[in-house]
């Protein structure tokens, strides 16, 4: 059954892994320093995004998924978080060893990013058109009029209503959804190859969320962009992802094509997440939740990070950390995977 799901999927979208990878992250480690002590929040993440595929990075807040995304852009908050190890490569070039200048050239032009909160993410004192124009002209040698044209086209593609008349609007004159469309326009204006979207719909109304996601997916397909979508919302994952990586406490615990992940999740954490999705077809079913809570990053468990919350934990799980083992298109970090049963 799983095999058929993959085949049907690969009919419309070629499976990602057999093409040349756009973004490769290997063994990425990020530490946060606070109050004189420092602790790891991203612990050896490996992730690949190829052209024309949407990879979703899923996990609860604080699991390190946003830090992973920011580190790709070189935008980790300075003086607080820093990359302490690993490799990030874009089209084979290592991003971590790039000069500031070279990294800057890549931003928006080759890799761009959309952030979670559109309300605070736009400069309040300049009209949106002028910021778009500034970003475009810092990468392309075009006149102001040409830059404005590019800006209007991007805004139209982001489906901002009356795009041409909005160039002189200030952010405060736009709604949250409209501001997120401006952010999308900013991100796609220069036809980047990779788009990173960090919880792009979390701060928006449910009705707007669907439109924004639909729009992002359409732009991704027509440009054949690679896209890394970061979210905590499995519904979002189900509706847009090609491939999914599940992150827990700073580690990737499972990675699989989207259909397989939902139909046959392997890791107990993934299983718990899927089980805890409310099922609208059952009107009075009890809600499932994963027992316990995420370990504080300052006190990591000795073995598998999920062991304290896992009902199948063995002694081994407490003593050694499982490796992420690859099996075809799927990866799993677990010593004692059990078949998935609903409920």
């Amino acid at each position, binding site marked *: 059954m799983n095999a058929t799901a993959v085949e049907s999927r690969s009919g419309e979208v070629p499976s990602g892994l057999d093409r040349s990878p756009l973004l490769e992250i290997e063994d990425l480690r990020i530490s946060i320093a606070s109050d004189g002590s420092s602790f790891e929040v991203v612990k050896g993440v490996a992730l690949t995004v190829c052209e024309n595929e949407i990879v979703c990075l899923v996990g609860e807040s604080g699991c390190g998924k946003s830090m992973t995304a920011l580190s790709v852009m070189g935008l980790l908050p300075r003086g607080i978080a820093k990359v302490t190890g690993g490799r990030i490569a874009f089209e084979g070039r290592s991003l971590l060893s790039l000069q500031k200048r070279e990294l800057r050239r890549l931003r928006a032009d080759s890799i761009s990013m959309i952030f979670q909160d559109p309300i605070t993410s736009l400069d309040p004192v300049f009209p949106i058109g002028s910021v778009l124009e500034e970003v475009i002209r810092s990468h392309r040698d075009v006149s102001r009029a040409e830059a404005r044209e590019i800006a209007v086209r991007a805004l139209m593609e982001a489906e901002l209503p009356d795009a041409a008349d909005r160039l002189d609007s200030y952010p405060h004159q736009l709604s949250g959804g409209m501001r997120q469309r401006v952010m999308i326009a900013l991100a796609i204006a220069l036809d980047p190859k990779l788009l990173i979207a960090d919880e792009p719909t979390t701060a928006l109304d449910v009705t707007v969320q669907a439109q924004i996601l639909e729009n992002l997916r359409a732009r991704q397909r027509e440009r054949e962009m690679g896209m890394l979508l970061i979210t905590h919302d499995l519904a979002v994952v189900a509706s847009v992802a090609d491939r999914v990586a599940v992150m827990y406490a700073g580690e990737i615990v499972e990675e699989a094509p989207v259909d397989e992940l939902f139909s046959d999740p392997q890791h107990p954490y993934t299983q718990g997440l899927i089980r805890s999705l409310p099922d609208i077809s059952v009107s009075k079913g009890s809600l499932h939740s994963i027992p316990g809570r995420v370990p*504080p990053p300052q006190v990591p468990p*000795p073995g598998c990070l999920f062991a*304290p919350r896992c*009902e199948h934990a063995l002694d081994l799980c407490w*003593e050694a950390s499982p490796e992420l083992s690859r099996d075809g298109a799927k990866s799993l970090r677990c010593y004692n995977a059990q078949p998935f049963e609903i409920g």
Partner: protein
Amino acid sequence: MTELDATRSSHAQAWDERVAAYENEARANPWRKKLREFNRNKLLFTGSVLGILIVGLGLIGPLIIGSDYAGQSLRNTHLPPLSEGYLLGTDQYGRDLLVRLCIGIRVSLFVAAAVTSMALVVGMALGMCGGFLGGAVDRAVRSVTDFIWGFPLILVAVLLAGGLGQGLFPVILAVGIVNVAAITRVVRGEVVVLRAREFVEAARACGISRFRIMWRHLLPNVMAPALVLASYYVAVAIIAEAGLSFIGLGAQPPLPSLGKMVADGRGFLRINHWESTVPGIGIAGLVLSVSLIGDGLRDVFDPQLRHEAKGVEKG
């Protein structure tokens, strides 16, 4: 949870204990944590030591060396510090500078205490009423405080001195009025935020009277920011009193005010500059210690208050 508990391994128990220990440490008694911050906070420490020294000098000094600040000795005028019988020397009338310094510090402290207690009591009452009751009361409180807050303190004081005559009273009144406005603004702002918070909503839903909510639930919450701000205004009061006395509008002779002493010494800078320098150092030390304590308290209690403190006026 239950299915887990039944099969808890020794590993799980060990880990639970580790997490619990970590969290206990992190949660530690908040007052102990504050106390630790107090000790670690260099600003607060330096300020307190300096403050205790100066206040001690003002309060205890006269008990030991006497408090005859007006006694003249025309044979011993303009003596430099460390002269026989006069540790800090004398002024143009041969009055003991050390005694006058001590009494001057007392005057400064008296003005600061009077002004600050007035500002705290009236400011907190007005701010809490305005912020919590809202409506017409709030509008009235806001327009009056905005009106007063915009005025430079020295100008208000000179105006009042013009009306009430020179002396300490108009100075206290002027500085007090302006400081009341400042405290009211901040407390009102805090209360408006608090009013929307769950615990106040809950108290209201339980039918607790408005007065009781203000007294029992709001007051403890606005106390910290009000006190931190008040420590800034102690500095403002000391500087204002000294400045006004300097130009002749504050304390009247022979009562020594530090500002007046600086002014008296002006004419003799070439003969014995200590007559101006000693009280000047006294003022600067006093103000510096209060500002350091204010900065330190702010760091410990309320990092968010920075913005308000930035607008603090001394003029």
